């Protein structure tokens, strides 16, 4: 991977990760109406796609 590709990868990753952090923070602060246990389930539901995305970024970086 060339330098320009790495620059694009970093920029894309930063944008995506900022978005993911925003999603998690919003989800955690907007769900006061959830029943007991709902918050933990919500974290799992968000973490799965987030981990998938970060895994993809790492795979791109090291391959």
């Amino acid at each position: 991977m060339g330098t320009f590709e790495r620059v694009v990868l970093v920029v894309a990753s930063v944008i995506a990760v900022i978005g993911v952090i925003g999603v998690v923070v919003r989800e955690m602060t907007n769900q006061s109406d959830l029943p007991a246990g709902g918050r933990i389930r919500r974290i799992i539901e968000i973490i799965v796609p987030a981990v998938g995305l970060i895994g993809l970024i790492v795979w791109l970086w090291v391959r």
Partner: protein
Amino acid sequence: MSIPKVRVTDPHAAPASPLATIKAYVELTKPRIIELLLITTVPAMVVAQGGWPSTWLVLATLIGGTLSAGGANAINNVIDRDIDQVMRRTKGRPLPSARVAPKPALYFGAVLGIAGFVWLWATANLLAAALSTSGLLFYVFIYTMILKRSTVQNIVVGGAAGAVPALVGWAAVTNDLHVAAWVMFAIIFFWTPPHFWALALRYEDDYAVAGVPMLPVVVGRQATLEQIELYTLVLVGVSLLLYPTGAVGWIYLVAAVVLGVWLYRAARRLHRRPGESMRFFGFSNLYLAALFVMMAVDALVL
């Protein structure tokens, strides 16, 4: 999970004409949704090939994809017939309007699904067939039967089913899955939530009456608009990730930046004018189609 039994057939109704029956069965497959699924399949095949693949393989993959997606949609119609009946947007569908009975619709969906698997295996390869069928099974058993009625994240996790056709297209050409195929999968995956939340904003009352926990029903309009904006930002970032895979060149990169800025601005505008949610819904359709077309253009030109 038990689904309430709903009477959808009228024993005194006059028999429908053969043409009306065929039309009802075609409607069961939700052709408009299939259209969007196929828009992502062909560019994935073109990028995988690095040019135009065999036209026969493209046609065969589109036929297989249509059979699988049509089967998934028909089975979804059967499972969701109780909630479709109480929602304005869906009560005209073949099952709630009693144009097709549930049992034949279920058999129809199952036959389409099996035919899709066999066809793709025979004409493309086992990986493409297995991926396509896994998309059907995920859509029916995970999304429709579990997630849709139980969690506000239904459309987020369920988006994986709609993202499978890109993998199918890539696998049909190479019998393998390159990292670029997974980036395409991620693009559709992160595109799905803001797209369907825009629709949910428009039909919020319908979903509330049907008891479907779509985001606007559970957390309100303001929080939904914030989530749409954030998911759009994630989507723009993910769309750029395709460039460093080496599968596409500068034509795609420029298109992804321009289209991304355009969609993000549309999401910001929606935040200020929530009444225009269907406008954003249309924009996001156009965004995905244009992004995938530009992938194909890039692979064909460069």
